[in-house]
């Protein structure tokens, strides 16, 4: 099975983030600062990462999220492990 495209990964991340934090999907954009848009702290961001790991069936060490604050960069980190 070939890996999904980055756009597809990004879209799934936005869907999951909207679902997990109960915000309308249309309010989330790829370059948004997710701390700000979702109103979350770094621990809640780690929680989101756990959800994403389950969804994509990958394991990302915490340090992969260090310095990442927008959905697009997050998608790139995940894509690299798919």
């Amino acid at each position, binding site marked *: 099975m070939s890996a999904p495209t980055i756009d597809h990964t990004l879209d799934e991340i936005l869907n999951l983030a909207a679902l997990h934090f109960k915000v309308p999907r249309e309010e989330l954009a790829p370059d948004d*600062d997710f*701390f700000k848009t979702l109103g979350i*702290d*770094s*621990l*809640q961001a*780690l*929680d989101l*990462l*756990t959800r994403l790991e389950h969804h994509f069936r990958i394991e990302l*060490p*915490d*340090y992969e999220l*260090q*310095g990442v*604050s*927008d959905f697009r960069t997050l998608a790139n980190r995940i894509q690299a492990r798919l």
Partner: protein
Amino acid sequence: MLDLRQYASLGAALKDALERWPNETCLIEADRDREKVRLTYSDFKEMAQPLCRALEDADFKAGDRAAIIMTNQSKWLISAYSIFFSGGVLVPLDYKLTAAEHLQLLAHSKTRFLVVEYHLWRAITQSPEFAKLAVEIVLVTEAPAGADLRGAYRWEEFRRKGEPRLVARQREDTACIVYSSGTGGRPKGCVLTHDSYLEQCTSLTAWYPFWPGVRYLSILPTNHAIDFMVGFIGPFICGACVVHLRTLRPEFVRDAFVRYRITYVSLVPMVLKNLERGLRAKFDELKPGKRWILDRLIGLNKMLTRRRPHVEVSRRLLPQVHRAFGGELLALIVGGAFTDSSTLQFFYDLGIPVACGYGLTEACTAVTLNDLKPFRADTVGKPLPGTEVRLLNPDGDGIGEVAVRSRAVMSHYLDDPELTAQTIVEGWLLTGDQGRFEAHGHLQLVGRKKNMIVTEGGKNIYPEDIEAVFDGLPVKEYCVFAANYLWPQKTLGNEVLVLVVRLEPSQRFDDRLREEMLAQNRRLADFKRVGGYLLWEKDFPRTASLKIKRGELALEIGAGAVRAGVVEI
């Protein structure tokens, strides 16, 4: 515990600890739910000795500086022990800093020897400033097979056979250089002696003792003053066990409490609040009848623990809550100056004592601590044994600047006599924090004199350190301040950085400028970002050499603008 009066250095005390409790477990390392390492004191010694010997062979000498940049793990402590054993000065650096910041502090501390995790080393080698790195020996942990280490050695292979020799140090010799902040322009390297640590350890364990069988969950970074003391030195000199968790995912942190039946843990306010949120959500899910019973039991527990904790009673009254924390938790340790008192009270009311205290790197670890006789959520406790605390120039309400004198206080800031002279005056450390003593001798912190904020994650952020990120912002001039510095308030919290902007005479604030400001702000780590901006309509006062007179400008802004004028970004 060891009688620390007998020891002149951390190296000598730790060496004896390894021999005193050979069969006790000293270290457990888990990654998520997988246990990776479990060491007794004897195993620890066996792992450290070949490294100590290799350091000897590498001509590592007394007083040589050695930095560690690692997340919390067993190799952190094994490396630190080996550095102390070999007479070295430890420079524990925050692994969350950027590679450029690491390089800056390595240069400032004149470090000869570095231990670093592979992913952090990779970032350092990719920095444009890498060529300037002057460290002689670099040991990289957990590097994948075949990785190009750019001249570094593998930690796992840097070993020699034979019995190493303990390098003696005196009490007044430097043990650590710990950076309290200042990666921007002026690194603040607190020089702490062996005497500072041995004294601090003695006074802290007098109130919160460790013993063989105690398990401390280490999730604050070990480079941080609190975890270094209560997640390494304290447990080791008492034969206790440190549990490292290589992830901060809340679900695994919760699991670790139960799996390892944790006795103590240190937390930053953010983690504490996360735990509180989780518990409150669980309570809210209860059916009304069960909720009613829970509330009554909490009420009863509150009554029974009003004067002092009775952990055994609380465990019987609220077994499910205590089981969720492993059932053996004795206290949560919190740098509580900046934690909501309601959060602290929430845990105490459930029968989980909170050792809430106040400290700063300049004072080694802690200055005051709650002795739980009784618990007071509204204070940061009483001065530790051997620590004098005084309030300078108190006002009518008894509020003054907190000053500290003790053997634990740092000796000086590395290579900065001017800053040292401003900070340690006639033997008293001026903290820049404002406080008062209440009737029972507890310290209450009420604000800050200095231009800085402390985040919920426990990070000190100094505006001077982050200003450079706004270089090139197309405005006449700008400056960053802590809002509470511009508009002092007699409460803590609500801490935010403000970007003060002076436009060109003909310039108007528009969306493009706003976008640019946001983009530049995003280049900062999330916890360092400014929270709002303020447009200022006068030129900034400057010195003859054109430096902004920050103090003067802050007074002008404080008098000429209101906090409500700050626009959130």
